[in-house]
C-alpha cells in the first residue's frame, strides 16, 4: 500500500519541462502491444499499489494502478465477486493500470462489456504532471467529460493512470461449457449468433475450425434453459477459456504472425487461407498468417473491421494506423492531454 502519486507527478513534470519521452512501465505483460519510443526512459509505476476501497455491497472497488490484478481478483473472489471484463495475464503479474491502458478483455467481452464499460472513474497524471480526476465511484455520473473512459485502450498515451474505480459484478452461481462439432465457418457464425438471441446465459462463444464451444454462466435455472436451447456435449475441461484468454492454446503455438481481427460478429468469413480461431461469437478472430500486413488490413477494413498485429515485427505497426480527420482529431486530443507528446509516444499509433 504505497501512494506514489506525488513522486510520479514530479517525474512527469520534469519530462514535460525537458521534453523527454517517458515509457510508462507496469509489469510488462503486454510489451508486445505497440513499441516504446527508443529514446524514452522508463517510469516504473508498479510501486504505486494497493486496494484503496472495496465495498462488496456497493459493487465497487478502487485501487491504485500498480496493484496486481491477481490481488484484486483474489480479494473479489473471497466475496463471490469478480471483474466483469476478464482481463488476461493476471497469473503473469499484470497490473490494474496496464489492464486498463491496454483495454484487453477476455471471452466474456461480447456478452458483458469492454474494459471501459466497467470503469466508473479514474485519476491520472496528464502530460504536464497534473493530477486529473474524472468520473467517480457511483453507477451513474454525467458531470464533466468522461476522460476516464478513453484511458482504456489508450496504451498510456493520454495519461499515467494513478487509480481507477471499477464496477464489480457478482460471480455467477454456476458455469459450464457445451461443445458442438462444426466444420463450416459460416454455419458456426450463424449458430453462435442465433443462440445469443435464444439465451441470456451465454458468456463466451468460440470456434476453432472443428468445434464450437459455448460457455454458459448464471443461475442454475438460467444454465438449464441455455442447455435446452443449445444442446451439445457438456465439457469437463475447465481451463479452455482461461487458456484462450492467455494465449496458451495449441493454436497460438503455430508458425506465423498472430493477428487480432475485430469485426461485427456476423461479418462473413475473412477468406484467408490461414489458421483461424474465432472468439466473441465472431467479433474477435485470431489469425496466424505471414501474408503481407497491408493485404490483411485491407481485407478486414473492407468488411468494416480492423486488424492488430500481436507479433513483434518492427516493420508492422501493431494497431491499424489512423488516417485523415480521425487522425487529426486523435492528435488534437493527445495534445490537449499531453502537450509535449512525452507519454508513451508512438505506442498506440506512429503519429500519436
Amino acid at each position, binding site marked *: 500500500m504505497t501512494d506514489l502519486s506525488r513522486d510520479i507527478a514530479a517525474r512527469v513534470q520534469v519530462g514535460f519541462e525537458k521534453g523527454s519521452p517517458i515509457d510508462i512501465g507496469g509489469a510488462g505483460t503486454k510489451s508486445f502491444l505497440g513499441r516504446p519510443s527508443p529514446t524514452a526512459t522508463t517510469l516504473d509505476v508498479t510501486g504505486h499499489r494497493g486496494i484503496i476501497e472495496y465495498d462488496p455491497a456497493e*459493487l465497487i472497488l478502487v485501487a491504485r494502478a500498480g496493484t496486481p490484478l491477481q490481488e484484486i481478483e483474489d480479494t473479489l473472489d473471497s466475496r463471490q465477486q469478480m471483474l466483469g471484463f476478464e482481463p488476461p495475464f493476471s497469473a503473469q503479474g499484470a497490473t490494474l493500470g496496464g489492464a486498463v491502458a491496454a483495454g484487453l478483455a477476455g471471452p466474456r467481452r461480447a456478452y458483458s462489456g469492454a474494459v471501459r464499460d466497467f470503469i466508473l472513474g479514474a485519476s491520472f497524471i496528464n502530460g504536464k504532471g497534473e493530477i486529473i480526476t474524472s468520473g467517480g465511484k457511483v*453507477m451513474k455520473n*454525467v458531470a*464533466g467529460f*468522461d476522460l476516464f*473512459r478513453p484511458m482504456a485502450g489508450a496504451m498510456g498515451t493520454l495519461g499515467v493512470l494513478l487509480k481507477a474505480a471499477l464496477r464489480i459484478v457478482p460471480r455467477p452461481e454456476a458455469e459450464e461449457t457445451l461443445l458442438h462439432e462444426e466444420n463450416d465457418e459460416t454455419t458456426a457464425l450463424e449458430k453462435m449468433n442465433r443462440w445469443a438471441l435464444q439465451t441470456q446465459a451465454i458468456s463466451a462463444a468460440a470456434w476453432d475450425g472443428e468445434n464450437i464451444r459455448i460457455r454458459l454462466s448464471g443461475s442454475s435455472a438460467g444454465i438449464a434453459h441455455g442447455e435446452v436451447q443449445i444442446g451439445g456435449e457438456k465439457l469437463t475441461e475447465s481451463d479452455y477459456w482461461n487458456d484462450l484468454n492467455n494465449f496458451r492454446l495449441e493454436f497460438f503455438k503455430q508458425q506465423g504472425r498472430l493477428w487480432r481481427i475485430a469485426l461485427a460478429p456476423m461479418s462473413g468469413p475473412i477468406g484467408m487461407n490461414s489458421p483461424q480461431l474465432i472468439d466473441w461469437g465472431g467479433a474477435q478472430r485470431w489469425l496466424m498468417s505471414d501474408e503481407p500486413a497491408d493485404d490483411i488490413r485491407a481485407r478486414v477494413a473492407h468488411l468494416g473491421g480492423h486488424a492488430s498485429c500481436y507479433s513483434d515485427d518492427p516493420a508492422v505497426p501493431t494497431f491499424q494506423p489512423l488516417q485523415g480527420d*480521425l487522425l487529426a482529431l486523435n492528435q488534437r486530443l493527445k495534445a490537449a492531454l499531453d502537450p509535449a507528446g512525452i507519454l508513451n509516444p508512438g505506442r498506440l499509433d506512429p503519429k500519436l
Partner: protein
Amino acid sequence: MSRAKPNSDPLIQQLRSVLPDSCIVSDPASMKPYECDGLSGYRQMPRVVVLPTTVEQVQAVMKACQASKTPVVPRGAGTSLSGGAMPHKNGVVLSVNRLNRILDIDGQNRCATLQPGVRNLQISDAVEHLGLYYAPDPSSQIACTIGGNVAENAGGVHCLKYGLTVHNILQVKIVTLNGDLVTLGSTAPDSPGNDLLALMMGSEGMLGIVVEVVVRLLPRPPLARVLMAAFDDIEKAGNAVANVIASGVIPAGFEMMDRAAITAAEDFVRAGYPADAEAILLCEVDGTEQEVNAQLDRVKALLDKAGATQISLAKDENERILFWSGRKNAFPAVGRISPDYYCMDGTIPRKEIGNVLTRISAMADKYGLGVANVFHAGDGNLHPLILYDANKPGDFVKAEEFGGEILDLCVAVGGTITGEHGVGVEKIDRMCVQFDEATLAQFLAVREAFDPDGLLNPDKAVPTLARCAEFNAMHVHHGKLPHPELERF
C-alpha cells in the same frame, strides 16, 4: 412560415445561401417553442433556428458559423432537464428534428443505424418484430431523440441491468465545428485510436453535432415480473435496496417512491400503491420463467427481512403495467399537486439512500418547500422533486438554493451532482464543487481540441476557471471551500 419583416441579419443571409428557406426559422413567433427546454425556468430567444434535412447541410451550417464566430446550440426534442438545449442569444439553434429516419436495421448483427432525430421509443418499436429492443429507456422516451440521448448519456429504469447509453452505442458520426464529418467507433467491438466514442457520450453538445448513431440491440427477455414492496420507514426501504444489490441479484429495474410521490401517483393513476406506506419499491426481474421465479424468491426473502410491511407480486402483465404506470406518471402526477416542481438528479452510494432522504426532508422543513422523491434506487440515482410556485416571488430562488444544498450533500457522501440529466446551464456552478481546478482546465482543453473557438453550446456544462473563482468566493464558509477535505473517490 410567416415572417413579419424581411430579415436583414447578415448571418441569416448567409444561412440562406447554404440552406433552403424552408429550413430556416427566424420570426419570433415561430422561434418561441425553442426558447427553452424541459427546464423551463431558464429561457432565451435564439437569433435563428435551422432545421437541416441532410448531413451536408449540417456541415455547411457549421462552416458558416465557424467563419462568422457564431455560437451553435444543438437541439433534439428539447426534453433536457438541465437547460442543455437552451438557446444562446447570439446563436443558431441547430435542430436535428428533420434528420429523423431509421437508416438500417441489421437483425443479424443486432444493431440499427439511425439519424439523430429518431425518437428513443421508435427504435424498439421498429425492431420488435425481430424480438429485439433498444435497452436504455429514459422516462421521456416517447419524445427524446437518440442524438439527445448520446449527448446526455441518458439512463432509464432498465439501465441497472442493461447499461446506460454509453454501453449501448456502437458508432456515431459527428460533424465538428469546422464542418468535418468524422466516424467514431464501429460495428466491430472496438476501433483504432483513442476511444473518442466514449468521450462523445454525455458531452452535452459541446464536441460535435451527432448526425448518425448505430445502436446495439438486445434480445427481448422472454418474461418480466415486478414486485411492489411497501415500508413504514424510508431508511428501511433504502437499506432494502442496498441489501438486494449486495446479495448478487441485479434486477432489471429497481425504483423507489416516497410518501409524497406515492400519494400524488395514486391520486392520478390509481396504480394500487398502499396509501399508508412511507416508501415503496418496485423491483422488476426478467429472464426465463425459471430464472424469474428463482430471483423473485430471493428478492422476496430479502425484502421481507428488511422489514417490508407488504409485498405484492403483479399477478399478470396488466397488473405489471399498472404498477409501473404509477412510477412512469410520477412526474406529471406531482405536477398536479404543485404549480411547479424542480427536478434534481444527484447520484449517491446506495448505502446512503436512507440517510440522504432523511436529510433532504429536514432541508424541506428549513426551506418551507415540499419535496417528493421518485427515483432509480438500484443505481442510487435520486430525483427529488422540489415543489414551488413560480408565481410566488422568491419561491424559485428558494427552490434553487434547496436544490444546490441537495447536490452539495450528494458530493459530500461520495456521489455526483448529476446521474443522467446533465449539467447544462443549471448545475454549471456546482461543477466547481465537484471538480478541482486542474481537472476543469483539462476539460476545457479537451473541448478546445474539438472546438478551438468554443462556439458549440457555449457557457454550459463546463465552467471557466474565472466563473468558479467567483462562485467559490461567494460560497466560502468560514474561510473554507465546500468539502476541501474530500478526495472525490
